């Protein structure tokens, strides 16, 4: 039964794919005899990981902190903006064009400016992450708020609801699924923002470590950092997904199915 569950969850397949990938990688290295500093074999990357795990963990923690803080601030700002847009037609007139315009500038292009203004520390990286997730969260939630079933709004009118109560009891709950898909996107984008920030200028974090390792032709260390980053992003996405699924379960499926 337990094995079945493991089988069904697709975990086995993911593991299989990963092992397959490592085999292909090893075979490519063996056949092409590519130099180590271009593509190190898997075993060497593993060795680098074991040897330098403290270093990697240290820098990983920095990136993780940036990503988490960026996520929190970005999501909160996105929610606040969407609510503001929904409640005030004036805000819609003024803020919306600015929002769209801000998206016309690639966030990547802003990274040097942010580093210049906010320095080499955490703040500039968090700001990058916030900038990159702010728009998806805002637009997903705002769309959700605009799509309240018209029948519910009719009901609210007949029931002589106040605007604020309509917002809290009807519009926001009805927009929750949209907000959560925005949050999912944010979980994917936030690490991108943090890494770009680190590349442009920093003295810690996985992005910094990768640049450093690359500069010293320690390609094995670079790969080890890269995989750590991948694992970090995937865990974050998985975690957010679990939280969201728990929430939606409670929200959509009654616990009273007899």
């Amino acid at each position, binding site marked *: 039964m337990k094995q079945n569950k493991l089988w069904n969850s697709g975990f086995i397949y993911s593991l299989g794919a990963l092992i397959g990938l490592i085999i292909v990688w090893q075979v490519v290295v063996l056949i092409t005899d590519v130099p180590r500093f271009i593509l190190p074999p898997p075993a060497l990357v593993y060795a680098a990981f074991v040897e330098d795990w403290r270093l990697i963990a240290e820098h990983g923690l920095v990136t993780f902190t940036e990503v988490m803080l960026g996520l929190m601030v970005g999501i909160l700002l996105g929610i606040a903006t969407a609510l503001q847009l929904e409640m005030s037609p004036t805000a819609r007139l003024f803020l919306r064009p600015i929002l769209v315009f801000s998206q016309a500038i690639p966030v990547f292009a802003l990274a040097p400016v942010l580093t210049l203004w906010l320095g080499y520390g955490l703040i500039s990286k968090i700001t990058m992450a916030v900038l990159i997730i702010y728009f998806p969260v805002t637009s997903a939630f705002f769309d959700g708020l605009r799509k309240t079933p018209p029948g519910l709004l009719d009901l609210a009118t007949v029931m002589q609801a106040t605007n604020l109560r309509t917002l809290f009891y009807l519009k926001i709950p009805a927009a929750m699924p949209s907000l959560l898909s925005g949050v999912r996107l944010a979980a994917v984008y936030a690490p991108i923002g943090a890494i770009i920030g680190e590349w442009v200028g920093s003295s810690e974090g996985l992005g910094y470590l990768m640049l450093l390792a690359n500069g010293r032709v320690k390609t094995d260390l670079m790969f080890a950092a890269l995989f750590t980053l991948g694992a970090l992003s995937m865990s974050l996405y998985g975690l957010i997904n679990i939280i969201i699924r728990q929430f939606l379960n409670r*929200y959509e499926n009654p616990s009273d199915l007899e």
Partner: protein
Amino acid sequence: MVNLNHQPVHNDVHINGSITISGKAILNDMNLTIKAGQWTALLGPSGSGKSTLLRLIAGLDTAADFTGSITSSTQVSLSSCVSYMAQDDLLLDWADVVQNVCLGARLRGQGGNKTKAKRVIQQVGLIQHAQKRPQSLSGGQRQRVALARTLMEQKSIILLDEPFSALDARTRTDMQDLAAEQFKDQTVILVTHDPGEAVRLCQSIYLLQDCSVNSIAALSPPFPKSIDDKAMFALQSALMTQIRQSKRADR
């Protein structure tokens, strides 16, 4: 049956005027009085303007231009004394039955009266489902929750916009009986396209077709009529004949 202390029922509704939608006449020179304390049907085919008229009475947005007046005999603003039930049950998926029934109070910030809600839910026969979410209820049960929500509002004018038309035949008849019992002697305006429903439930019937509103001689109380009532069938056939004589707008 529990007495819900309904407000005094002397609240006739007078409607005068015309409805057009982007220049096209829908209803011309209406002049009708909805009598207090009884069921009135607005009967008509799709596009006859019956739902638009109901939305105007409810104070809801419509795509139509209305010139004229809708007034109540007690001089109170109409929008403060109506409640509304539509074909779609409009239940909140994220709230349980009790919370759905208390929606009006919550939206007005009055704090829901749970005891009263339970009583109303009992009246519609759903007390054992009170803690459930709408997803785990059948279509008929959901519509009964919507009925309970409407009862809970305790308004003097009840607007029903084809609330039974999406239900299967048996459930529809059961719901008609339940609604007739719960809204007995109240001012109810029922929008429907089904002559059978109008005849079975309503003491006065307005037929909306060919851009005009005509009063039809309805049956006399009590309502609802038994499902094998001969007079009901006779009137239903006569009405159907009259409806079919009208030119079809969609041909």
